[in-house]
């Protein structure tokens, strides 16, 4: 569907046309899925999509029908992406077991590549502990012994690194 089509559909949704709105949400659902799959670990993608659909619904009055729809949707998706990155700061990570079923590696590979590009822009000490604790699921203690950083330094580096990731994302023009 072209952006023009979505623009017209959103304008109709703002006037209360539920059928068109349903079609629009149905069409932006896979768009959002593709958006987040490139940017977040697979486990977070569904939540991010649903969160963004809710935000689109709650903030639909902020869309101006005279302007294209896709940049508006992109701005909301990006906002929710940054939110998720921030949430990673406070979320606990659990160590992964080796016997979990992984149906498809494609999403994981795509998001890992995108995350790796971002992590490359951090200081090595920060990127290392984020990889170990937030992506590989190691404990703070294990990351400390692997990297030679003290436990408190690991925590500080994770906190600062994720903060830097959020600001990198915010500053960077969204070209994808």
């Amino acid at each position, binding site marked *: 569907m072209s952006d023009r089509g979505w623009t017209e559909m959103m304008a109709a949704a703002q006037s209360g046309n539920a059928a068109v709105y349903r079609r629009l949400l149905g069409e932006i659902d896979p768009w959002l899925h593709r958006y987040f799959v490139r940017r977040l670990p697979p486990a977070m993608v569904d939540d991010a999509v649903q969160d963004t*659909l809710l935000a689109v619904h709650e903030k639909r009055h902020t869309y101006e029908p005279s302007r294209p729809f896709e940049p508006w949707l992109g*701005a909301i998706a990006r906002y929710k992406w940054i939110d998720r990155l921030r949430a990673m700061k406070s979320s606990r990570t659990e160590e992964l077991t080796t016997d979990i079923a992984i149906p498809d590696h494609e999403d994981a590979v795509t998001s890992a590549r995108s995350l790796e590009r971002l992590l490359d822009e951090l200081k090595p000490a920060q990127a290392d502990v984020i990889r170990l604790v937030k992506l590989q699921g190691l404990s703070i203690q294990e990351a400390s012994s692997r990297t030679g950083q003290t436990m408190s330094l690991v925590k500080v580096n994770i906190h600062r690194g994720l903060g830097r990731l959020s600001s990198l994302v915010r500053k960077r023009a969204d070209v994808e």
Partner: protein
Amino acid sequence: MSNEFLIDRLTVGLKPVRPRKPVIDGVIIGGICLLELILFLGMGATRPNMPLAMVQPSFWWKLTGLGLIALFSGAAAVMSFDPVRSPRRGLIAVVALVAICLGAGWMIDAGRGGWGAVVGRLDWRNGIWCVHDMTLLAIPPVMGLGVLMQRGAPTDRKGTAWMVGIAAAAWGAFVFVFACPFDDPLYTAVWYSVGCGIVTVVSRLALPILTRW
């Protein structure tokens, strides 16, 4: 919950919404500010020697500077309630505008004698009262802009909160100019900056939490 189920839930009983217009937001916040100014002046809070003040360059410096800062940052804040618009450029411009205003104050003040009298000119007892009053006067605009911010969809909540704080603080100080009996540019630069700074920092800390979406 599957996305299909969520979409069904969101579309059931869909009600029409009126698209947000920045101009309407501007009119609302302008109305609140104007009402505050009218009430403030109507309560007889104007300084008694107003005719004398009106020939002082520092009075017009305060009024023009704060008015421009309030107007510009208010407009930039309202624009940034749109998810597609960032407040960053507006913030840089406002910081430059504040620097220009303070520089203009320094030029007005250049004729005044002596650094030795600086502490006396600052008159901290009255200064604290001025800070108190201008902070109270900033409450209506900060609340009005906060409600509009909550209704909008700012994607850089911290930047927008800075902008709202600067706009509300500058408006509170602008209204207070009509009651403030002190014309010394040094006094104004220091105490007005303290008052505006408090409102701005409080807005920056509180609004991102209160307007989370």
